[in-house]
């Protein structure tokens, strides 16, 4: 589902963010990418979204060779990838419902699909009673649930999560991980970059550790360090 083959990324300022990284992730896997700040976790996610181009090597996501697809096709690639971030990236002037429906609206889904899927997915993430709440009326954990709902509402093949629990307390983090696990169980491939040792240790999933842009460990059912 995700494949990086000898990928190197050098930014224009000369910083090498990833160096000769090769990773294979199968459909339905749940993978943690761990490592200190600046180890290349976020760069890896940016490459998978084609927000950045690899300097060398090949990146494949959902069967597409990213350096070969035109910028015209990039939006269609991203429709197959859900994204979740540390800061939720919700629009403050839109309700939970509207934040999720926005994602379908802007890719041109018809209204009847929106009206059916949005309440369904919000129910699924446990916010069935908060459809009309604005982000500032929701707790951090609830806001992250909205953002996960938005990431999943178009039924993506891959979910990329960049520090999704970074702003949350441990208990709430556990709830969010339960939710991500649930999303993973319906077949969504998940790649999650994180610093959260407790969570990685508790989940016992595959762990890829990066350090200074290199893969230093790739272990199934691993722990943080």
């Amino acid at each position: 589902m995700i494949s990086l083959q000898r990928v190197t990324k050098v930014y224009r300022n000369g910083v090498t963010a990833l160096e000769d990284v090769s990773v294979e992730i199968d459909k339905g896997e749940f993978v943690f990418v761990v490592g200190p700040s600046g180890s290349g976790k976020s760069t890896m996610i940016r490459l998978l979204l084609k927000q950045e181009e690899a300097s060398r090597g090949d990146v494949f996501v959902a069967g597409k060779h990213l350096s070969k697809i035109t910028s015209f096709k990039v939006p269609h690639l991203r429709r197959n990838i859900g994204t979740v971030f540390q800061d939720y990236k919700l629009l403050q002037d839109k309700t939970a419902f509207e934040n999720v429906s926005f994602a379908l609206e802007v890719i041109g889904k018809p209204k009847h699909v929106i009206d059916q899927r949005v309440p369904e997915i919000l129910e699924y993430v446990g916010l069935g009673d908060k459809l009309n709440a604005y982000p500032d009326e929701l707790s951090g954990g609830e806001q992250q649930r909205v953002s996960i709902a938005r990431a999943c509402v178009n039924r993506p093949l891959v979910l990329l999560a960049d520090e999704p629990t970074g702003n949350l307390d441990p208990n709430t983090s556990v709830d969010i991980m339960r939710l991500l696990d649930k999303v993973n169980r319906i077949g969504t491939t998940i790649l999650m970059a994180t610093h959260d040792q407790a969570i990685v240790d508790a989940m016992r999933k595959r762990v890829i550790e990066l350090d200074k842009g290199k893969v230093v460990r790739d272990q199934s059912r691993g722990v943080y360090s």
Partner: protein
Amino acid sequence: MAPRVEYFFRETASGLRRNGVVAFAAMSTAFIALFLFGLSLLIAREFNLVTRAITGNVEVQVYLSDPVNLGTVAHLTDKLQSVQGVASVEYWNKDRTCKQFHILFAGQPVFTENVDCRNLPTSLRLNLSEVTNFRLITATLGCSLIVEPDGDQHQECTEPGIRSVADYQKLLDRLDSLTRVLSLGVFGIAVIMLVSAIGLVANTLRMGMFARRKEIGIMRLVGATNWRIRVPFLIEGMVEALLGAASAIAGLFLVKVFVVDRLRGTAPWLPLIKNTDVVAVMPWILLAAALVAIVAGTIGMRRFLDV
């Protein structure tokens, strides 16, 4: 398809509301620019009308000095008829001149009551095949322009019995340069204003995109196409330019009603532009507005286009 159109217009409306003051500045600049642009077109059309009215029946008047000797008339007629390019020569005596005078100034008793027909000059009226043959006629009659030391000009002719020859060429030349100065001058200002309108519209689009950069970032992440992101902004620019165009057209009609139509009363001999002329420049104004919107859109969104 229906929700899509609704989506675009909802986004555009909220953009205009959010950006009110800047959008208004862009609109008013577009209005002034397009108004001046339309004005330059109308001035050109007006001068075209005047020129055509003058050259339409190319006629040269050779005014005769009083008292008129019929022998001289016959002699001059013969002489002029032999000039190349002269189609016909006609003698207008006092009676005929007087009648024409009363027709021309029918609405203005100031002229008809105070001018004694005996003082109107008789003339030979020549129809020319081409206005450029005018110089041949002055040459045949031996007429030349005398410039006096104080700058006054008058015509003197070697042929006897001639008072003056109406010089259309000079009038046309003057009209032509007047057209050029007025029309090109206004057009030049219009172009400068159009450029600033483009700049301002581009700026409102850019500010709108900046205000919504988070939204745009999310749209990119969830896979909205570039067009989906851009179209509301393009419509916004288009709306600003078109509102400017609509006010410009309204302004031109006002000019036509309050300036041109008022002139119609005081100078009935002057051919003036009509409503149809204003209507005729409308497509050009709309075209210029569309150009403003398109160029502004291209410039304003260039920086935000990378995926």
